[in-house]
């Protein structure tokens, strides 16, 4: 399946590891991502606080570019996704708004090709396909799936399974062989840009989420949004200091965990780019080493393969020469 890949601004900067891990994992599951040429900023969490119509026109431009190519947008960032879905919803429900948007972007936009989150795309590709490709199950890793606001709400255009207790990330986590924990703060707000722009209010919001994840017994948090990850990862050290007891909860993008289970090199997944390093946790759980896979016709008996069906699986990674963590 082919998509117009819309990385959005964060994924070239603070969300770099989401970008590289998404692009590394997608082809292994038969998903083709072609970056949308000349994409522009969706206005993120700022435009809609300044003008309703402009905030719909900015993401509509990108979806219209995708439409010209006959492709749906594939969007990793939850904020970009939310704004793009808002534009799609507006165009579908109001002729008047569609006309305004089209005249602002100076392009036709009919919302013919639904914008999709990368999460939805991976789920649509089939959990069975994912399971078949797993070489290194993430056994023993307890994961708190964090959806934040924008994967779960607004409910009128985010078709989410359950806005109070969504399961999509959890099903992926479980398919990878890890253990999703049940916890209370899956969809609580991390404060959006407040932790940067107004830490007096943003700090306590991040703190609550970290404390609840800790209480749930999770080893780590997994999310699908660069803003959520930025808040939970970057602020953790300072918040730990403030409460007098450090937090130690590495925060992953779900695509990084997928990549680990698919036996990709940590370097290809950006695992060393986090503020709270996940490396000690992953070595403790023995999840960092790459599994060496020899061709089946050689000596299959010597091949240290964890799951029986994996023996037949050719390594999905083209640069599987060296082995071991990068």
């Amino acid at each position, binding site marked *: 399946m082919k998509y117009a890949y819309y990385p959005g601004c964060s994924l070239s900067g603070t969300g770099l590891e989401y970008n590289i891990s998404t692009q590394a994992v997608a082809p292994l599951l038969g998903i083709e991502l072609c970056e949308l040429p000349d994409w522009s900023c969706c206005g993120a969490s700022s435009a809609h*606080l300044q003008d309703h119509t402009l905030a719909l026109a900015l993401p509509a431009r990108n979806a219209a570019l995708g439409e010209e190519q006959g492709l749906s947008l594939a969007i990793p960032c939850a904020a970009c996704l939310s704004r793009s879905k808002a534009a799609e919803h507006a165009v579908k429900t109001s002729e008047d708004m569609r006309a305004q948007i089209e005249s602002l972007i100076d392009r036709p936009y009919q919302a013919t090709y639904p914008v999709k989150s990368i999460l939805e795309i991976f789920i649509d590709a089939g959990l069975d396909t994912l399971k078949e490709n797993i070489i290194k199950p993430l056994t023993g890793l307890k994961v708190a799936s964090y959806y934040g606001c924008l994967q779960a709400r607004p409910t009128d255009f985010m078709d989410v399974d359950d806005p109070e207790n969504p399961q999509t990330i959890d099903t992926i986590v479980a398919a990878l062989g890890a253990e999703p924990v049940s916890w209370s703060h899956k969809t609580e707000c991390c404060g959006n840009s*407040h932790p940067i722009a107004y830490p007096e209010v943003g700090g306590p919001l991040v703190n609550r989420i970290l404390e609840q994840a800790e209480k749930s017994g999770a080893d780590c948090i997994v999310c699908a949004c660069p803003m959520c990850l930025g808040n939970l990862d970057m602020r953790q050290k300072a918040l730990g200091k403030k409460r007098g007891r450090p937090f130690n909860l590495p925060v992953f993008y779900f695509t990084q965990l997928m990549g680990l289970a698919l036996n990709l090199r940590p370097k290809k997944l950006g695992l060393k780019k986090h503020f709270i390093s996940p490396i000690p946790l992953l070595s403790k759980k023995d999840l960092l080493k790459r599994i060496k896979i020899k061709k089946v016709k050689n000596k299959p008996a010597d091949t240290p393969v964890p799951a029986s069906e994996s023996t037949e699986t050719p390594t999905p990674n083209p640069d599987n020469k060296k082995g071991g963590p990068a």
Partner: protein
Amino acid sequence: MNTVNITSTLAEAQRIRQDLKTKYDADVGKCYQCGKCSAGCPVAFAMDTPPHKVIQLAKLGLYDEMMECHSTWLCATCHTCSARCPREVHPSRIMEGLRIEARNQGSVKVRPLDIFHTKFMKLVGKRGRVYEMALMLGYNLSVGRPLKDAGFAPKMILNKKLSLFPHTTSKARKEVRKIHERYNRMSNTPHPDQTSGGDTP
């Protein structure tokens, strides 16, 4: 308690209620003040007027009170209130609409937040894409805390997570500038921040 001149504020209040209906499909008239929106609001602890009271202000037509409250500025747009409201009042949309109205009236109640979002939009208008280094620098200088979060920078630059150079394409930049130009012509009230140029590095 202040005295309220109901007649003078009523016309304004009716206009904004109509605006909320047309733009946001949100009708404050449906609210029955159950308070569920405030109960689940993650930012209520910091608000001067909890969300259900903001809705009540809009219902009663107390325009000045709506424009003066800090809550619409502190709202993190998490949409929890809208997801849970039993009357489909969509409080989050109302908070957003009232904040935009207050901003257009020059009634900015939480300055750092407004500066952040204004800087962000200025960068979008100028480059078509946001370049985080410029955003953070511009924001820090404006709020007079030049070194805020600066401790994160070295590691981020090392990890290529904070690019030292902007990334965009000329087509993206040109087309987004055009969108802003058309928008300014259409709305006839250009925000100072939506003109290209500006003081962002």
